[in-house]
C-alpha cells in the first residue's frame, strides 16, 4: 500500500459523502463498484479522486445490478469491496445482496436514503429501512447500521467492513440524503490509532494450490436441489446470525431511567428526538430517548425493558411506520401504547416533536 490516507486523528468540516469516502480509505477498502445516483454520487467522486493515490480500484458499472454483483465478485476475490446507492438503485441492488446473504459474502453497501417510492425525490427520507433490512427473497440475515452524525458515519463505515468480514453477513450503512449533503465537524482517524484492528480478508476463490490435487476446489453455489438441503444451510446461517446478534446489536439511550415517555428514532432523526427530550426535561417533563444503532439485528430486548417502565412510547421517523413496525414487533404483548409521528420523506425538527407530544398529551 502507498502511504496511509489518514494518520492519527484529524478534525475536519466536510459533507457526509466525503466522510464515507475517507472512512472507506481509512478502513483499507480495496475497490469500489458504483453506478451514479443522487444523493450518493459524491462518495464515488471523492473515492475516484483519492483511490489512485492510495492504489485502490474503482469501476463504474452499467447499473446497480452490475455494481452489486461486481461487489460480490470483489469480495469473492478476497478484497474489501464496497458499493453505494440509494432509492431505485437500492431496489436493484437487492438481487446481488440476496446472493450475498445466501452465500455469506461480506459485501458492504452504503445507502443514502432518498424519497420513495419510485424516483420520488433525490433529497432525503428514511423509507429504505424495510428494503435494506429485509430486501431480497430471504430472511434479512444482514447487519444494518444507522448512524446519526458524521462522526458515526465515519466510525460505522469502518465498522461495517469489520462486521462483514468477521461475521460474514452482508453489511449496510444506512445513511440518508441529509447526512450525505450536510457539512458538520467530524474527527477522522486511522483505525489503528483508535485501537481498531481491521478484520483480515481472505479470498474465497483464486486460492493457492492446484485445485483437485493439492486442495479441494472451492465450489460455491446458491442453488439447491431439495427443500431439506436449503433448509439445513439456511438454519445454520440463521442460528449463527442469532448467536452473533448479541455481539453486533447496538443502541443509544438518554434520560431513560425515570422516563414516562420514551421517544424512539433512528439515524439523523434521532438528533431531533434527543433535542426534543432535552427541551422537555428542561420544562420538567419526564421524557427519555432510545435509538437503535443497529436496525438489523434490532435491539428489541433492551427496548422492551425500557418500554415496560414507560407510560407512553412515541416513534418518530421520516417514513410511514417502517421503524414503528419493528418496534411493535419487538414489543409484542406489551401494553404500553405506541404513537407514531410519521413523516414520510420529510425532515423532522425538535420543535415539531415537542409540539406533537403536547398535542397528543403523551406526557
Amino acid at each position, binding site marked *: 500500500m502507498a502511504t496511509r490516507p489518514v494518520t492519527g486523528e484529524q478534525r475536519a*468540516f466536510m459533507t457526509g459523502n466525503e466522510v464515507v469516502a475517507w472512512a472507506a480509505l481509512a478502513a483499507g477498502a480495496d475497490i469500489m463498484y458504483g453506478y451514479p445516483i*443522487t*444523493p450518493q454520487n459524491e462518495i464515488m467522486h471523492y473515492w475516484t479522486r483519492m483511490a489512485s493515490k492510495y492504489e485502490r480500484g474503482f469501476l463504474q458499472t452499467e447499473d446497480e445490478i452490475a455494481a452489486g454483483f461486481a461487489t460480490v465478485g470483489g469480495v469473492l476475490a478476497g478484497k474489501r469491496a464496497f458499493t453505494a446507492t440509494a432509492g431505485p438503485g437500492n431496489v436493484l441492488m437487492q438481487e446481488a445482496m440476496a446472493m450475498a446473504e445466501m452465500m455469506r459474502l461480506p459485501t458492504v453497501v452504503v445507502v443514502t436514503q432518498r424519497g420513495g417510492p419510485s424516483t420520488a*425525490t*433525490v*433529497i432525503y427520507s428514511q423509507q429504505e429501512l424495510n428494503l435494506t433490512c429485509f430486501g431480497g427473497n430471504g430472511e434479512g440475515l444482514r447487519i444494518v447500521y444507522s448512524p446519526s*452524525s458524521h462522526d458515526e458515519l465515519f466510525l460505522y463505515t469502518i465498522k461495517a467492513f469489520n462486521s462483514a468480514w468477521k461475521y460474514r453477513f452482508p453489511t449496510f450503512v444506512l445513511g440518508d*440524503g*441529509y*447526512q450525505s*449533503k*450536510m*457539512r*458538520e*465537524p467530524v474527527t477522522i482517524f486511522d483505525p489503528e490509532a483508535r485501537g481498531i484492528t481491521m478484520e483480515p480478508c481472505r479470498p474465497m476463490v483464486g486460492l493457492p494450490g492446484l485445485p483437485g490435487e493439492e486442495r479441494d476446489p472451492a465450489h460455491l453455489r446458491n442453488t439447491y436441489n431439495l427443500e431439506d438441503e436449503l433448509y439445513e444451510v439456511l438454519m445454520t446461517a440463521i442460528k449463527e446470525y442469532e448467536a452473533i446478534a448479541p455481539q453486533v446489536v447496538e443502541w443509544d439511550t438518554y434520560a431513560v431511567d425515570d422516563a414516562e415517555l420514551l421517544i424512539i428514532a433512528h439515524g*439523523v*432523526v434521532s*438528533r*431531533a428526538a*434527543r*433535542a426534543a427530550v432535552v427541551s422537555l426535561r428542561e420544562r420538567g417533563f419526564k421524557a427519555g430517548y432510545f435509538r437503535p444503532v443497529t436496525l438489523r439485528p434490532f435491539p428489541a430486548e433492551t427496548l422492551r425493558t425500557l418500554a415496560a417502565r414507560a407510560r407512553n412510547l412515541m416513534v418518530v421517523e421520516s417514513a410511514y411506520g417502517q421503524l414503528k413496525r419493528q418496534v411493535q414487533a419487538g414489543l409484542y404483548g406489551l401494553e404500553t401504547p405506541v404513537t407514531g409521528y410519521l413523516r414520510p420523506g420529510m*425532515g*423532522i*425538527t*425538535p*420543535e*415539531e416533536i415537542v409540539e406533537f407530544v403536547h398535542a397528543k398529551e403523551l406526557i
Partner: protein
Amino acid sequence: MSLNLKIALAGEGGQGVQSVAEIITEAAYQAGFQALYIPNFGVEQRGGVSVAFVQVSSEPVSAPKFTTGDIVVALSHRAVERVRQYVGEKTLLVYEAGLEDDVRQVYGERQRRLAVPALAIAQEEMHPRVFNVIILGVLVGVTGFLERRDVEQALERQFGHKFAQDPDLRELNYRALERGYEIGRENL
C-alpha cells in the same frame, strides 16, 4: 457564550448563497463552534431558487433543517416568496434593498427587517461579483459571533487559489466584507 443561531439564505443560482453559507459555517467551525450547513438540492436544481440552511451553536446541532430561522436572507424576487415558510415573528429578514416592494407585498410592514443595498454598492463602488461577500459581511456584522480574522481565513480557504492569481481580487473581497460588516454592525 451560549449561541444557537439558525440562518436560511435564498437566491438565484449564481448569486452565491451557497458560498456565503459555506464560508460562515467554515469560519464558525474554525472558531470552535458547532456548525452545520446543508444546501437544498433537488432534480430541478438548475432552474430553482437556491436555499442554504446554516446553524451555528455552542451545543451539537440537532436536525439539519429547521422550521423557523433567526435570520432569513432573500436575494431575489423568487427568493422572497420561497423563504416565507422559514420566517417567523421574531425572524430578522435580510434582503437586497431593490426588493423592497416584493418584501412589503409578502410580509407587510411589521416584519423585523434589514434592507441591504448590496447590488448598488457592488456595482457602483466595487464589482458585481462581490455582491455575496457584502451579504456575508452583513451577516457577520449582525450576528457578532465571529472575529473578522476567522472570516478572512475562511475566505482564503474558499477563494485563495483565485486570490493567488489576482491579488487585487483579495483586496476587493476584503473591502466588500468590511463594507457589509459595517452595515451589519449599525443594525446590531
